[in-house]
């Protein structure tokens, strides 16, 4: 133990004291009409002690971390082995809900929706390198498209789904135009504003969207036109009547899960193919160097717009499923924090990494649910995890593995 280490720890502890004092160290006590501040010395001292001890043992921690920081990566597998693993995972994801309980399946559906959103944003941020902080806007457009089509025109889920995707795509395309010239910080701010504009529009177009109350009673998807309802309206056969089953709410949830799962497979298929296509390579090239792209005859306008549009489409599809799962949409569900969460999924997973995005979506959705009792510390822990990730593993949980095409040499 060196002397500099000791003084370093001492200074850190003092700094911690200064920082902690106003937050935890002062308690507001109100007696009748009088309000006074009561210092909580033990809280402050405890905080300082923790920081001091941590600073003292940090060199050991670092040595320890250095030794066992074997970074997780997908194990190397043969082509056949990988196919087997994928088939196995697909089967597991198809079968387990029949054995899971209701809240688990419901949560899994939410995870799948976030996977869809993550895959969409991954195209925009991970591949095309366009930092989009308003991604939730497209999610909202998708959700509200279904909600409004149901509310005003009585459309069912499956009829509305393609329109939800298409509307979001249209918004993605339209947003693309004003931001074409922007990069980095400027782009982030404009997209942030765009997300907020959509939310404010939804709040204020009262006669159309129901304002802050939103739209409720949105039906779940039907099974080939047969609704999954306990009691069907006059003249409609429900699915359980058709099958001669007893109505069970669990079935409805499992069905929604399976429908979402199919959609995730679809988005996964599309995005996996697209990133290996010329347009996917162009996205990456654009992320690397826009000027070089232009000098080679690549039209940056088209490339950026295609990334925005495709990312937004995925978000719109996710939004429709979200509306069906909740049965209710209101602007509260589409705040900036959602955009931040989706972005975190992409960053945590490893920019551009599909498997990473899936993994991160699971972690970031399931962990907060498991730690319900710590709900008030959720954002704190979230922030901490992000800081630690960026320090120790900025490339994400499962970084992309290059190359996707190889030349035999």
């Amino acid at each position: 133990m060196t002397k500099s280490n000791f003084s370093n720890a001492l200074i850190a502890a003092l700094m911690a004291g200064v920082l902690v004092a106003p937050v935890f160290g002062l308690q507001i006590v109100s007696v009748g009409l009088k309000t006074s501040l009561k210092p909580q010395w033990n809280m402050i001292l405890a905080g300082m002690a923790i920081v001091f001890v941590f600073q003292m043992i940090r060199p050991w921690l670092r040595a320890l971390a250095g030794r066992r920081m074997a970074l997780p990566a997908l194990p190397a597998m043969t082509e056949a082995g990988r196919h087997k693993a994928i088939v196995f995972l697909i089967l597991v994801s198809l079968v387990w809900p029949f054995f899971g309980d209701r809240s688990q399946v419901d949560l899994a559906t939410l995870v799948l929706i976030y996977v869809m959103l993550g895959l969409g944003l991954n195209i925009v941020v991970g591949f095309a390198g366009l930092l989009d902080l308003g991604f939730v806007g497209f999610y909202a457009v998708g959700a509200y498209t279904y909600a409004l089509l149901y509310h005003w025109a009585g459309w069912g889920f499956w009829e509305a789904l393609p329109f939800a995707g298409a509307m979001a795509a249209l918004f993605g395309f339209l947003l693309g135009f004003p931001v074409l010239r922007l990069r980095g910080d400027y782009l982030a701010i404009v997209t942030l504003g765009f997300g907020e504009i959509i939310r404010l529009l939804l709040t204020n177009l009262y006669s159309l969207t129901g304002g802050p109350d939103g739209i409720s009673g949105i039906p779940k998807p039907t099974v080939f036109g047969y609704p999954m309802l306990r009691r069907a309206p006059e003249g409609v056969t429900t699915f359980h009547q058709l099958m001669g089953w007893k109505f069970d709410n669990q079935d409805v949830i499992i069905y929604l899960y399976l429908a979402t799962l199919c959609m995730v497979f679809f988005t996964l298929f599309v995005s996996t193919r697209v990133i290996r296509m010329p347009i996917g390579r162009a996205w990456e090239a654009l992320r690397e160097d826009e000027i070089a792209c232009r000098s080679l005859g690549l039209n940056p306008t088209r490339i950026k717009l295609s990334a925005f549009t495709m990312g937004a489409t995925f978000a719109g599809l996710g939004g429709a499923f979200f509306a069906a799962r909740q049965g209710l949409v209101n602007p509260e569900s589409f705040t900036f924090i959602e955009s931040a969460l989706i972005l975190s999924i992409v960053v945590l997973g490893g920019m551009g990494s599909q498997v990473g995005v899936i993994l991160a979506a699971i972690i970031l959705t399931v962990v907060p649910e498991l730690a319900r009792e710590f709900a008030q510390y959720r954002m704190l822990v979230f922030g901490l995890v992000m800081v630690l990730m960026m320090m120790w593993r900025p490339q994400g949980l499962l970084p992309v593995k290059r190359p996707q095409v190889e030349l035999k040499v």
Partner: protein
Amino acid sequence: MTDSLLKISGLTMRFGGLLAVDAVEFEVKRDEVFAIIGPNGAGKTTVFNCVGGFYKPTTGSILMEGKPIDGLPSHKVARLGLVRTFQNVRLFKSLTVLENLLVAQHMHVQTGLLQGLLKAPSYRKSERQALERAGEWLEFMGIRALANREAGTLAYGHQRRLEIARCMITRPRLLMLDEPAAGLNPQEKQDLQALIDRLRREFGVAVLLIEHDMSLVMGVSDRIMVMEHGKPITTGLPAEVRTDPRVIKAYLGEE
């Protein structure tokens, strides 16, 4: 003249109060290697940027085979067959060498989204052809063994060669090289000279060259234009330029 490929007249580029390029005129013929030389800050790269569509010239005309191209966006200029390298190599660093060459073929691959998603035969064929062409160019440049490496990890000389390959794979008619010998060792400079000769002979590409290395310029160029302070001083054959007192003055200063 019928064999004119690129004709530039009265080209002026002004940045605020700074006259970076002033009344530049020159012409590049088919299969010609035309070099622009001059001290640092003479406006050579600015000329490149104007020709390539990266800057919009203040005045002047740029004709590609008689058709005006000034004011066109750079990607359209590139599609007309004018492709350039950069003074500081601009590769797609985290893409592999092979992917760099695949991206460069973007303007020649026409695949619809649906064909790609379904891996239609036409898509497979165009992808296979793109791969083959990339392989051929890597072979030509002698860097095939590096195909699957990330471009940013290549040695500098190899990066330069890759950048030229990436230009050539777009099938240009005019290749613009901005200081291609900068940072190369003497052996690599010799190879570069041989390469430029070969490109012209085998692929019939004209070359517009900016270079400081005099032995390379003198060895490879058909004609040379010397610039100073944004203005062309003289244009002529290498032997003429070398002995021109104005050029000597521009480079060495007055006695």
